[in-house]
């Protein structure tokens, strides 16, 4: 009498791709991860073609031009779009990094310092400036001096938010450098330290309106962007790599599955 053959799982490649994707064990992590490009698309749309808030206008703009800009741009629509996705900001600034931070063998204090700094920065450095721009366009007939004050306030809060980003970048770079699990490569930790340094560079926007140190300055803004944009792209890909390479037995749901009495190991095909 032949032994009954063990139940054989369908070979993975036979399953339709959509179901395979939904059955992905790391689905929650991938969902959080893929929010990042969506968020940046909307963010970029809001700040650039919709309103031309970025690249930043000159701090020395004449009053009349400031008034024209603040009252005629579709700032409210842009603001609304931003507000809608500002919650996604929580996902992008915290969630996406938590994918790797949680796995690093460093003190939880560093991780929670990162979280706190990002939350503060999202409100003070992003929601506040965008709200101020939106407010300026809400009614016509505001006093030009008041509009100019909001113009300054918004750009200073956006380009000049320093400490609330110094903290998370410093925490992240320390976490990467000190991490014994080497989730992310060490050189990326040093590159992140430069993000911290760019926050120090940006301090000059509070002191002057002239090039190269004003909020639209070559050194205080454009050079910082030159350092920031490649870093954001690189860390995004590195997080993806770390996510893909995460071994299955580290996943909570896989470990739970394997500990259940009903679990049947799928025979491995050699």
């Amino acid at each position, binding site marked *: 009498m032949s032994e009954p053959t063990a139940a054989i799982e369908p070979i993975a490649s036979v399953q339709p791709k959509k179901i395979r994707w939904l059955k992905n064990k790391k689905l*929650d992590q991938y969902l959080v991860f893929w929010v990042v490009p969506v968020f940046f698309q909307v963010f970029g749309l809001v700040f650039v073609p919709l309103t031309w808030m970025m690249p930043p206008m000159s701090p020395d703009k004449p009053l009349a031009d400031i008034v024209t800009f603040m009252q005629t741009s579709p700032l409210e*629509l842009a603001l*609304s779009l931003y507000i*809608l996705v500002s919650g996604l900001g*929580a996902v992008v600034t915290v969630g996406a990094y938590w994918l790797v931070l*949680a796995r690093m063998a460093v003190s939880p204090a560093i991780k929670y310092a990162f979280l706190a700094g990002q939350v503060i920065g999202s409100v003070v450095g992003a929601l506040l400036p965008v*709200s101020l721009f939106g407010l300026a366009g809400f009614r016509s007939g505001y006093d030009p001096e008041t509009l100019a004050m909001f113009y300054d306030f918004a750009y200073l809060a956006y380009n000049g938010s320093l400490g609330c980003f110094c903290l998370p970048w410093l925490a992240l770079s320390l976490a990467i450098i000190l991490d014994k699990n080497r989730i992310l490569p060490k050189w990326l930790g040093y590159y992140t330290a430069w993000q911290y340094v760019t926050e120090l560079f940006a301090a000059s926007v509070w002191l002057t309106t002239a090039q190269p140190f004003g909020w639209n300055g070559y050194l205080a803004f454009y050079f910082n962007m030159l350092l920031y944009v490649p870093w954001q792209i690189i860390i995004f890909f590195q997080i993806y790599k770390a996510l893909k390479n995460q071994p299955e037995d580290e996943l909570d749901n896989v470990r739970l*599955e394997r500990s259940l009495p009903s679990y049947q190991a799928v025979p491995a095909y050699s």
Partner: protein
Amino acid sequence: MWPPLSPQMTPEDVAAFYREHHSAMLGVVVICNILGTVLVPIFATIAVQMMRIVNSSKVFAVTYIAAIAMGATAFIIADYCWGVALFRPDRNPQLISLLNDLGWIFFIAPVGPLIAMNLCLAGAIYLDARPDPVFPRWVAHFNVVTAVLSVPAAFAITTKTGPLAWDGSLSFTLRLTTLAVYVGVMFIVLLGVISRQGDEAVEMPA
């Protein structure tokens, strides 16, 4: 603040309103300042229960916590705006009206964090791998519906009239009613979840 100030009021009317109801409004502002974070513990409890959910990681729970902080901060900023507007009643009416606008914007519009929280909780529940899930599945559907109903309020600043304006049926009534119902329902759900905690049929791996 009931019924809410119409966005169409002129600055002089707004300033007059502030002068008229000065002490009552100041009382509300101070109370809101102190109680501004009163909803945080219930959201924190939801977050703690989310930590028990078994996805591949705790990402949704941590993002939830970050979003709580963002939402609470926006509410407090709204409160400060109104507080500053009330502080010197003989200020230029234009400035009082401006601060009033800013307060309303920060009160009604920041639905982003709430939507993110709802979607995180829904996602976590849908992907819960436990044989006896922490939250019943209908809670996830409920959260998605809440998120969708909160969306219009984000556009409150684009108009001064109609249902989308900050005193309108979509932005004000719908958004605040949704929030109130949400908190009430989640409170009852949490009672059930917490009482079931510890009764797991299967030993959870550490």
